[in-house]
């Protein structure tokens, strides 16, 4: 009797061990084969290659072309604003149309044209480091070099006496970090090299430091802001004209391949080569203005994809 009992117990034990072992085996085997940690790069620290006024660390995806239309209206308040200009909406201090194109996943080139100074700009942007979520790389680093060409007629006969006086260069390493899916921050020191300035005391080379951030409110709506510190660094403070540090805040709405930004900023101009050195309006004195960005992304060379498993079709 006892012996029978023992055998039953032992048999049950055997069954339990065997069953447990196989269940554990499936889970532990599955775990060892989990390859999701291979995909350790942190993507989309910012939604777009631009924040409000400044560039972000993001570049265009490979073979993606972004058409970007930007608009800065006039002063909301103060002497030039108010009801007579419908709070600045009658005025366009700057308009911009430009294209950003991803040559590779890491290299983007862009061209654009602004209303102010009839400025043509060309930039090259290269991603150097991308943040990793396994601690390997804590930051994103992107290098930006942008050249601006003023195409307008000279205001005075001695302006642009050399053709090279029309050129300006903006060089900026951009460092950012995505702290969480909602919060990203960015810092970007920069050097603006100008050929001529209106004031003899205003240095041709301006060293600046920018700060920017994003707070994602929902999956498709973000609050973004950027600030560029110009005064108090390499710029003299006894200039004939009063200049202010540019500050822009905005709401960024993303829907598929479109991005709409509704912005407020004190800077009249759109491109770094113009706004970094020439912002003459202040947030305090009604100089803040409304602006918007419309961006539409086009994927080019889709017909090059011969893989039927990933080929998408738009009817």
């Amino acid at each position, binding site marked *: 009797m*006892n*012996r029978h009992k*023992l055998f039953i117990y*032992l*048999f049950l*034990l*055997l069954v339990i*061990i*065997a*069953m447990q*072992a*196989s*269940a554990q*085996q*499936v*889970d532990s*085997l*599955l775990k060892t*084969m*989990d*390859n*999701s940690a*291979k*995909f350790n790069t942190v*993507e*989309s620290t910012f939604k777009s290659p631009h924040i409000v006024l400044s560039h972000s660390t993001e570049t265009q*995806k*490979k073979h*993606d072309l972004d058409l970007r239309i930007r608009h800065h209206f006039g002063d909301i308040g103060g002497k030039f604003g108010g009801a007579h200009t419908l709070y600045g909406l009658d005025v366009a201090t700057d308009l911009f149309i430009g294209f950003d194109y991803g040559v590779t*996943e890491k290299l983007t080139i862009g061209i654009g044209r602004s209303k102010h100074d009839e400025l043509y700009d060309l930039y090259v942007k290269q991603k150097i480091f991308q943040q990793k*979520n396994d601690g390997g790389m804590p930051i994103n680093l992107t290098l930006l070099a942008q050249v601006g060409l003023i195409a307008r007629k000279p205001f005075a006969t001695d302006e642009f006496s050399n053709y090279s006086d029309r050129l300006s260069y903006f060089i900026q390493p951009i460092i950012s970090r995505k702290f969480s*899916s909602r919060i990203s921050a960015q810092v970007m020191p920069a050097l603006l090299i100008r050929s001529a300035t209106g004031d003899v005391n205003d240095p041709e080379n301006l060293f600046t430091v920018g700060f920017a951030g994003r707070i994602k409110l929902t*999956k*498709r709506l973000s609050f973004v802001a950027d600030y560029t510190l110009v005064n108090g660094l390499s710029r003299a403070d006894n200039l004939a004209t009063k200049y202010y540090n540019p500050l822009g805040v905005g709401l960024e709405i993303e*829907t*598929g*391949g479109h991005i709409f930004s509704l912005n407020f900023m004190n800077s009249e101009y759109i491109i770094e080569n113009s706004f970094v050195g020439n912002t003459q309006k202040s947030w305090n004195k009604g100089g803040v203005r409304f602006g918007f960005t419309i961006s539409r*992304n086009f*994927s080019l060379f*889709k017909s090059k*994809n011969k*893989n*039927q*498993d*990933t*080929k*998408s*079709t*738009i*009817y």
Partner: protein
Amino acid sequence: MISIKNKKLALAAICFLGFALQGSAQTLIGKTIKVNLFSSTPVEDIKASSNMGTAVLVTQTQELAVQVSIKSLVFDKKLMQEHFNENYMESDKYPLAKFKGTIEPKIDWTKDGEYAVSAKGVLSVHGVDQPRNINGKISIKNGIVNLDSSFEVTCVAHQIKIPRLVFAKIAEVIQLKVSGTLTPLK
């Protein structure tokens, strides 16, 4: 009546037998399981694919588990791939999609052949578990098992929200195809 010593010995022997038996229970694994995703609407057809899915099959218990890393799914539009990961699948939070279940009916895994089967278990996508009964085909040849299954995943069932603005472009029910080869684990 057996002595305590003998009892211990018998226990040890049977435990050993248990492990030995477990060893003989065939386990198969697949490391290049192909996962195809297909969304079709009158406006746009979207396809994505991964060949980095992994699978485990225990023949004795007929248990089957398949998983795929969401970020391994490749789209031809990289922006679309980014949106898929960021806005829909939240792959930083939920890196894997997984199915774990038991194959029915009972199959003789030592015999070559083709079997229409169904797997009853749990499908976990976007962190939401759904009990599912998924139909598929299993073919066995020389101890190597081929898996092939097509099924549908309803976005709403897994709390994947599609905003009205892009409703026309993304299907509410996504077609999935899982196929691949499993070989005996050595």
